[in-house]
């Protein structure tokens, strides 16, 4: 009888350490995911590496640009994206897969059994981390390609049509690529699978298909996430791309929309798998 009485007491009492309004809230999951992202030392190092890769590549490529190449100043500043996008892809993929590869998923999803708030919070913290990293990378790229380090390359000129969009696009597409990485990571759950798929989608398929232009390959290229990098081009460069293609003419924002659609579909598939399937 004593055990029964104390049993009901245990159920009725307020747990030690519980806040005034106990329970799981999205804002709380968000704070937890931010702690998780920043408490693994490899993540800050990855961000730093991405900044260095962006600025270093921009500096290196800038040295080879001549004034009569038809490249604008924005092309030089954002040129590091070709390498830096791998950093953003890896960042997202690491956030998406590490739950499952390390067994943290057991802890995470017993604390938040509804699961979807976790993926939502991961998307927010990944986007914020990628956005901040991209902005820093952009600034570093500008500093690395200006003044005495500019060589013969044209200076950044916001009066050139599409320049502002290209600079903003650097950050926007970086965030989108990191979210694509997160979606692939959460969907496939294995780093190797997520990264290989990601690299194919944002980079390699487009590069392979560009060697064989035609109505079919150009249409496929327009439908790949890599079309999103059009947002990084100024108006003149976008016009050249649209004139050359034998597939659909996307313009800059059309390419961004294609990338955005990929992000939504892949994250949606990841959410479906997360909610419907078992966590190991």
């Amino acid at each position, binding site marked *: 009888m004593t*055990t*029964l*009485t*104390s*049993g*009901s*007491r*245990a*159920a009725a009492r307020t*747990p*030690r*350490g*519980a*806040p005034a*309004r*106990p*329970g*799981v*809230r999205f804002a*709380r*999951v968000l*704070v*937890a*995911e931010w*702690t*998780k992202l920043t*408490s*693994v*030392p*490899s993540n800050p190092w990855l961000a730093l590496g991405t900044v260095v890769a962006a600025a270093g590549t921009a500096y290196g490529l800038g040295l080879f640009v001549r004034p009569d190449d038809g490249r604008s100043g924005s092309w030089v500043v954002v040129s590091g994206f070709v390498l830096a996008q791998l950093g953003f892809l890896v960042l997202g993929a690491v956030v998406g897969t*590490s739950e499952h590869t*390390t*067994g*943290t*998923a*057991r*802890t995470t*999803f*017993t*604390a*938040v*059994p*509804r699961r979807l708030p976790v993926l939502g919070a991961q998307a927010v913290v990944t986007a914020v981390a990628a956005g901040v990293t991209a902005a820093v990378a952009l600034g570093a790229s500008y500093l690395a390609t200006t003044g005495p380090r500019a060589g013969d390359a044209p200076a950044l000129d916001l009066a050139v049509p599409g320049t502002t969009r290209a600079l903003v696009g650097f950050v926007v597409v970086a965030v989108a690529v990191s979210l694509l990485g997160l979606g692939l990571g959460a969907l496939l759950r294995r780093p190797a699978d997520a990264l290989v798929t990601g690299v194919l989608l944002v980079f390699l398929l487009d590069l392979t298909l560009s060697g064989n232009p035609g109505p079919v390959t150009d249409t496929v290229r327009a439908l790949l996430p890599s079309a999103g990098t059009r947002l990084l081009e100024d108006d003149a460069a976008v016009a050249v791309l649209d004139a050359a293609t034998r597939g659909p003419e996307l313009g800059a924002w059309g390419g961004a929309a294609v990338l955005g659609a990929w992000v939504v579909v892949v994250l949606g598939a990841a959410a479906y798998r997360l909610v419907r399937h*078992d*966590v*190991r």
Partner: protein
Amino acid sequence: MIEVEALTKRYGSTTAVDGLTFTARPGTVTGFLGPNGAGKSTTMRVVVGLERATSGTARVDGRRYADLPAPLHAVGVMLDARSVHPGRTAYKHLLAMAQTHGIGRARVQEVIAQTGLEPAAHRRAGTFSLGMGQRLGIAGALLGDPATLVLDEPVNGLDPDGVLWVRRLVRELAAEGRTVLLSSHLMHELALCADRVVIIGRGRLLADATVQDVVDRSERAGTVRVRTTDPEPLTRELLATGAQVTPQDGGVLQVRGATVDEVGTAARRCGATVLELGTESGSLEEAYLQLTGDAVEYRTADTREGAR
């Protein structure tokens, strides 16, 4: 309180848990026993909502785990010591867990102290020994000060001090009126700290009873052990009364079907000198091996039937 009812979990054609029903009650330590692959871990994972039951239900405090508004305050879970990112410190791991429920840093420090993790709190979990990982897992389970605890192999990898600590801890938790469900391969350990045991084999329930009841079911339980200088005449005398006698080394006889009094009287009748006389109590381990051994045989016959 954990209520598992007609729970079945299949992976493709493999049935991991097969119509399992049991209840773990408040104020009680319920030991969960079974051979490897019997479905203990699968059952625990279904209880805490990591896996979906194929059919049947598992409820905690009358609700599905996923419907609990504050799971960490209701159920403390330790499924596997390796449920931590190896690059994260113990403190940050617990902090991130606590933050999902708005639990403060003070409580995180409290469970770190309670589990003896202070010296290692700011070390990466990847550098932890199995025992330290186990303590971190238990710290995570205690974090929300829950009324129910689900612990999978909590003493695995702990040193004797740690084993003693876990034994005291689960007894204390149950004495405070909490529900404790714990699995272990260490039969001796379970016999010491569990009130009830749920034994499963091949995903099916084999026994759900108090530890004493299960021990009494073992082959040796209730038999009389007698050591004598004259085993032969005593054996004849006992067989004549209808008891079964199994002779052992050193003049020891194992007697079934007779009480201590009857064996003593029989010895006086035939003039045998009794050096030792007592009732055997059997052990949880023996009872367990008998139960699970039967389950395997039964299951093999079952499969053959199905193949025909």
